[in-house]
C-alpha cells in the first residue's frame, strides 16, 4: 500500500467529490449525443410497436435474435458488478474497494437496460404485465413452469436487490457530499438522499451487518439470475441450447464480460478524473487475473460443448455444432473464439496486464466476443435445429441495430449522470483500507 499511503482522508473526500464539479462542455456534448442516440432507439422501438415486430430482422425459424442477445449481454454485464461488490466483499478482496462503486452502478444500469429487452422483443409489448402474477378479473394466473417467468422474478429481484445494495452502500458517501456542498438545491438533494446519516456507531453497527446480509443475499442471487437466464435456453430442447453446462458456463461468461466492461468503463474515468492514486495498476491486475480465469472457464465450456455433442452421438447436437463451426454463421463463431479464447491469453504476460492501454483494447475485444457468444448461441442454434425443412437464416435489420444502439445510450445516459451526481468511488470504504490515523504513527 505504498502508493496509497500518500492519501489522507480529506484528500479522499476532496478528490472523489471533485468529480461532481460542474459538468464540462465535453460532458454536455457527450450527454447530448447520448440522448440523441437514445431518442433514435426510442423511435425505432415505437416504430416497431406501431408497425409490428416484422420490422425487426426475425425470420422463421429464428424467433429470437438481437434483442435477446442484448438481454443476455446486459444481464451478463451486470453480473460482474455484483461479483465485485458482493462476492469479493465476502472474500475481503481489497482490490475491489476502488472500483466496486463503478461496477455496482454498472450492475444497476445494466439490469435496467437488460430489463427493457424482454419487453421490447414481445410481439405485444403493451400486454407485458400479463407476465406478472396479479389478481385480475379473468381469474387467470401465470405459468410458473415457464422459464420466462423465472426470468421475470429473477431479473426483478436482481434489480431490486442490486439497487438496494447500490444505494445503501452510498449512504455514508452521500452524507459526506452533503457535508461538503454549499449550493442549496444540491444540498437539499443530498440531504434527502443521505437519510440523515451521521456516521454514528450505532448506524455503522447496523449498517455493516445489513451490508453483510445484502452481500450474502446478492452472492447466490447473482449466480441464480444468470443460471435462470441460461435456463431460458437450457430448459428448451433446441440442439445447442439443451445442455446441463449452461448455468456455470453462463455465470462464468457473465463475470468474464462484466469484468471486461468494468475495465472499459474505468479506464477512461480514471484518466479523465485523474484517479490514478485510487485506482491502481494493482486493481487492474487483479481484474485481469480474474479475466484469465473466466476466459479459461468459458473456453473450456466451448470445448466441452463440442465434446458432448460428439460423444453423445446425438445427430442434432452434432449437426448444430458442425454448423456453428462451418455453416453460414461461421465467421461470427470464429470471431467469438478469437475474442474470448485467444485474445485474453495475452494477459498471461505481466507486461500486458499491467499496461492500461492493452487492457483497454483487450476488454473491448472481450465485449465484442461475448456479445457474439450470445448471438451465436441464440441465432445459430435456432436457425439449424431438428427439422431440416424448417431451417432458415436470420439477417439483422436497421430497427434492431437502432434499438441496440439506443440501449447502449440508455446505459450510458445513466452512467454519465451517475458520475456527475453520485460518488463514483466509495469514500468510506477507501478510508477503511487506508491506515487509520493514530497518534502513535504521528509521533513516530
Amino acid at each position, binding site marked *: 500500500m505504498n502508493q496509497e499511503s500518500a492519501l489522507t482522508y480529506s484528500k479522499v473526500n476532496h478528490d472523489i467529490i471533485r468529480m461532481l464539479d460542474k459538468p464540462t462542455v465535453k460532458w454536455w456534448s457527450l450527454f447530448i449525443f447520448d440522448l440523441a442516440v437514445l431518442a433514435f432507439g426510442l423511435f425505432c422501438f415505437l416504430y416497431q410497436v406501431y408497425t409490428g*415486430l416484422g420490422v425487426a430482422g426475425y425470420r422463421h*425459424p429464428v424467433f429470437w435474435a438481437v434483442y435477446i442477445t442484448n438481454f443476455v449481454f446486459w444481464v451478463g454485464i451486470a453480473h460482474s458488478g455484483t461479483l465485485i461488490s458482493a462476492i469479493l466483499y465476502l472474500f475481503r478482496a481489497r482490490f475491489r474497494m476502488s472500483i466496486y462503486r463503478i461496477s455496482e452502478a454498472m450492475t444497476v444500469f445494466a439490469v435496467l437496460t437488460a430489463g427493457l429487452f424482454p419487453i421490447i422483443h414481445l410481439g405485444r409489448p403493451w400486454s407485458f404485465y400479463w407476465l406478472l402474477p396479479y389478481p385480475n378479473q379473468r381469474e387467470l394466473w401465470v405459468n410458473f413452469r415457464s422459464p420466462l417467468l423465472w426470468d421475470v422474478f429473477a431479473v426483478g429481484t436482481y434489480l431490486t436487490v442490486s439497487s438496494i445494495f447500490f444505494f445503501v452502500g452510498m449512504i455514508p458517501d452521500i452524507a459526506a457530499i452533503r457535508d461538503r456542498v454549499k449550493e442549496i438545491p444540491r444540498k437539499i438533494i443530498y440531504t434527502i438522499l443521505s437519510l440523515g446519516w451521521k456516521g454514528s456507531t450505532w448506524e455503522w453497527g447496523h449498517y455493516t451487518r445489513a451490508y453483510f446480509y445484502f452481500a450474502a443475499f446478492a452472492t447466490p442471487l447473482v449466480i441464480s439470475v444468470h443460471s435462470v437466464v441460461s435456463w431460458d435456453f437450457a430448459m428448451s430442447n433446441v440442439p445447442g441450447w439443451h445442455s446441463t453446462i449452461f448455468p456455470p458456463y453462463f455465470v462464468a461468461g457473465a463475470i468474464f464480460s462484466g469484468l471486461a466492461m468494468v475495465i472499459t468503463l474505468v479506464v477512461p474515468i480514471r484518466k479523465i478524473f485523474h484517479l490514478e492514486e485510487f485506482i491502481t495498476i494493482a486493481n487492474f491486475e487483479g481484474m485481469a487475473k480474474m479475466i484469465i480465469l473466466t476466459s479459461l472457464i468459458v473456453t473450456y465450456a466451448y470445448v466441452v460443448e463440442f465434446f458432448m455433442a460428439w460423444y453423445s452421438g446425438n445427430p442434432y447436437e452434432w449437426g448444430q455444432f458442425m454448423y456453428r463451426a462451418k455453416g453460414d454463421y461461421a465467421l461470427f463463431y470464429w470471431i467469438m473464439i478469437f475474442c474470448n479464447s485467444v485474445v485474453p491469453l495475452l494477459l498471461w504476460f505481466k507486461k500486458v496486464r499491467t499496461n492500461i492501454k492493452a487492457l483497454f483494447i483487450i476488454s473491448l475485444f472481450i465485449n465484442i466476443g461475448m456479445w457474439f457468444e450470445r448471438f451465436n448461441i441464440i441465432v445459430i442454434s435456432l436457425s439449424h435445429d431438428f427439422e431440416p425443412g424448417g431451417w432458415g437464416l436470420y439477417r439483422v435489420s436497421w430497427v434492431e441495430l437502432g434499438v441496440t444502439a439506443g440501449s447502449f445510450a440508455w446505459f450510458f445516459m445513466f452512467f454519465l449522470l451517475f458520475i456527475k451526481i453520485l460518488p463514483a468511488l466509495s469514500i468510506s470504504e477507501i478510508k477503511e483500507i487506508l491506515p487509520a490515523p493514530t497518534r502513535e504513527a504521528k509521533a513516530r
Partner: protein
Amino acid sequence: MSEIKKGGSTKPVLSKGEGLITGGIKRRDFLKILGVVGGTAAITGGCSPEPVEKIIPYVIPPDTIIPGIPKWYASTCMECPAGCGILVKNREGRAIKIEGNPLSPINSGGTCARGQAALQGLYNPDRIGGPHTRNSSGRLEPTAWDEAESILVEKIKEIRSKGNGNKIVFLTNNISGSLNRLIDDWVNALGGRHIVYETFSHEPLKEANRISFGINKIPTYHIEETKYLLSFGADMLETWLSPVQYARKFSEMHGYKNKSMGKFVQVEPRLSLTGVSADEWIAIRPGTEAFLALGIANAILSEGAASVTSGEADKLNRLVKDYKPDVVSLITEVPTETITRIAKEFVESRPSLALGGGAANTSSKSTETLVAINILNYIAGNVGDTVNFGDTLTLSNANSFREIASLVDSMSKGEVELLLIYNVNPSFTLPKTLRFDEALKKVPFVVSFSSFMDETTEQANLVLPDHTTLEKWGDYTPQDSVYGVIQPIMDPVFNTKSIGDVILSISKKIEGLESQFSSNTFYDYLRDSWRGIQTRLAPDKDFEAFWTDKVERGGIYREIAPIQVRLSQEVSTVSFSEPKFEGEGAIYFMAYPSYRYYDGRGANKPWLQELPDAITTAVWDTWVEINPETARKIGVKEGDFLSIESPYGNITTQAYIYKGIRPDTIAVPIGLGHKSYGRYAQNRGVNPIEILPVLTDEASGGFAWLSTKVNVSKTGKREQLVKTQDSTSQEGRGIAQAITLKELESGVHEQHELGEKFDMYPPQKYIKHRWGMSIDLSKCIGCGACVTACYAENNIPVVGKGQVAKRREMSWIRIERFYHEDNGFDIRFIPMLCQHCGNAPCEPVCPVYATYHNHEGLNAMIYNRCVGTRYCSNNCTYKVRRFNWFTYNWPEPLNWQLNPDVSVRTKGVMEKCTFCVQRIRFGEDRARDEERNVRDGEIIPACAQACPTKVIVFGDLKDGESTVSHLAKDERGYRVLQEVNTQPAITYLKKVTWDKA
C-alpha cells in the same frame, strides 16, 4: 347500405366499394347482414376500450339464411376443364369455403389448390366492377348495363345490315352444356362462328385415337384398376385432363394396401410433380418417347406376349420391327435393359396402362408418339379395359391450335368484324410469334365477357363482365358421364351480369332472334335445357323433383362402361421420325403448365401465388430449372438471372438448380409474366410462351410446346430466389421415411415402439376424445390442396413475396420436400403441421398459458392471451408455429371470404394448426344435440377434406375402433423425430418404394 364496424379489427367491414353492388334486397343478400353476426373475429385484448358498435337488422330477412348457421350449396368448379363437383359453404350470405362434392365421380370430395382458390376469383379485388366501354379518348370507362348492351346490339345490327354476319366470331373456352348450346345457336343464328379455344386442348390425343381406333375423342382412363402405370410425360396429377380425378385414382392404384401396390414409371426429360410420385423416373431425350414406346412394343411383340390377333400382330410387327431395344436405346438414351425390363413388367402386371400427351412434352411428332403409346396399350390389352372410350371428355370438342391460328390469320386480314371473347386470354396464352395482338387491332369491335382485366380484355372495345362461377346459374359437362349443375352460392359481389343473361337480353333487341331465344333469363334457358336431359335420362320423373334433386346433389352422375375397339388400318400408315426443334441453341426448352396457375388464369389469386411450388418451394415468381451439371458449366448458382434466348425472343429469370432435369434441358413454368390481370399477377415473373415458335404437332394441328432449342447465358444479376424451404436434404434424420415393398412383405423391418415408454409423469388423462391424425406418405403427391384449403378455412393471411423472402409465410401446413440422391434421384414429400404433441415442448415455456394441452389432446393456442414471446416456436421441434409479424389485411372484398368461426389474428401473436378446432367443436355440438357420440370420420379438418388422394385421416385416438387409431398402430407408422419424445398425435405412414433394380 349498412356498415358493421369493429374497433381495431380486420374483420370484414362492409362498405361501399367501387363497383360493389349496393342496393336492392335480394335472395342470399349479403349486404344487409344481421348485425349480430359475429363476423370474423379479430383479437385485441389488453385493456382496449370497447368500441361503439352498431347492430343492423335485415329489412326483409332472406328465406334461407339463419345468421350463424352455415349453408352448403352444390356446384361445379370451372377453374379448369376437369369440372369437379364442389360444395360451397355460405355463411350470412357469403361464400366462404369450397369443398369437393363427395358425390361427384370426378373428384369424390377432393379438390386441387386451384379449386380451393376459386373463392379468390370471386372476391378478387381487381375484378371488373361493371360494364365498360371504350370512350373517344380510347380509355375504358364505366357504363350502365342497358347502355353497354345497346352498344353491342347496335354493332350487331350494323354488321348484319352489311350482310357480314359471317364475320362474327365467338371465342370461348371449353364450355360444354347449356351455355355452349346457347352460344352455338346464337352465333349461328347471326351467321358467325363459335370457336372453342383451350390452351391445353390435347389435340394429338384425339388425332392419335382417330388414327389408331377411328375415334376422334379423348377417353377416360381407369388408373385405379391398373397394376402398372407407364406414363410418357403425362402430368396427370397436375394439369393433364382431369388432375383431381386421376390423383384420386392414382392413389387407389399406388397407395399401399393389403401388402401390395401398383408400380408407376414416368418417362420424361424433367422430373415433374407427377414424376415425383413415380417409382422410377426415366430421363428420356426430349421428343423421343415414340421410339421408347415402339421399343417396348417391339420387345413385347418379339416375346410373343402381346394379347392381339395374329393378323394385328403381323401388322404391328411390321411397324415396330426396326425399333429393337438396342436401337431405341441409342435414340432415347434409355439403357437397353431398362427397355426390356419395362416391356416385361408392362405385359406381366395386368391390367396395365400407358399414358401420354402431357402438354409440356407435346412435340411436333406428338400424334405419332401417342399412336405408339396406343399400340402399347393395345397389345397389353388395356384398350377397352383401363382405357375407356365409352366415357369421353368434352375437351375433345375444343378447336385445334391450327384453327386458332387460322382465326388469327383471318383476323389480321380483316375478315373478322366482331370478336366476342369469353373466358380465354389469347394475348397471354398464344405465342408472341403468332401476333395475336396485332391481329386483334385489325378487328373493328372486340367484346370481352371477362370478369378480370386481363391482357385481352384490356384491348376490348366493350367489356361485359360475367359473374364468376360462384355467382351464376349454369351447367357443365366435363365428360359424358357427368352433368354438373352450377348454381349461385351468393349474390354477385360486383355489378356483373351472367353472359347467358346478356345474350338472351340482347337477343330480344335483334330482329329474328327474339323468337329463337325467348327465355327471359339464362336460368329459364338452363331449366329448359335440363328438361331435355330429364326426358332423355329419367322420362318418368317429375321435372321439378328431378331438378331439385340434381341441384342438391350437384348434377347427374352416371357410369359408362368402356367400349371395345379394334386397331384401325390407318395405324400401319404411320411413320415415325424425330420431332422438329427450332433454334440453334444447345439446350431443349421446356415450358410446362403449372399446377398452380394452369395456363395463367390462376395467377391473380394470392393463395396460389403463395402456395410453394412442391418441387422448388418457390413462390410469387418464375424460375428456370437447370441441371447442376449444366449450371456448373456456365457457372450458375441458384438465384442467378439467366437469359434464355430462342429465335423468337428472350426471357430472363432466376435459376433453380434441379437434379431432376436432364443436363440438355431447361424448364420454365407457364402461368406468370402477366402484363395486366390485377395486382397479384401484374409484372410478376416471365411468360415462357413468349419465346416459343408457332410450331404445331404436324398430324393434329395441336400446339407443339416442346419445340425449341435455346441458348442460355448468365446475366450477372443475382437475387435471392424466394422459396420456403432452403434445405433439400433431410440429413439422415428420418423426417420423411420410406420402406421398400420387400421389407414390408418379409416383415423384416423396424417395428416402431407403440407401447408407453417409461415416463417421469403419470399418463395423461383424456376426457372422451383424443384427437389424432395419420398421414400416409405413400399417397401424398405434393399437390398443395391441403395448404390452400387451410388458408381458406383458417383465415391465414397472404404475406407477399417480400415477406416470404424472410420466410414469414403464414401457412399452418407445409409440404416439405426432400431430395434423395443415394439411389438415383428421388424426392419425398411430407406434409408438416402441428403435431399436437402429448409432450408438447411449446406448452410449458409459455409464461401466460397461451398455449396448453387440452382434455381432448389438442395443443390449444389462445391468440388473445398471447403476448408474443415466441418461445413456443423456438421450442417447437417441428417448427410449425407461425408468428404475426404484422397485422395483415385483406383488400376489400377478399376479406368477405374470412371464416367467421376463426379469429383473425393481429400483429404480435403466435398461431398454428388447430386441427380445425372450429370443426371439431361443430361436430361435437351436433353430436350432443342429437344425443349421440361423435361418429368416426364425421369431423374432418380442412386439409384432410381437400386432399384429393385421401392422405390424411383424422379421428379419435381414444376410440379403439376408429380408423385413425388403427392406422396409428400400422406397421408403416412412425412419428417424426420420435426420439425427442414429444409424443405427437400425428402418425405418419412410411412411403413404400419398389426395390430398386
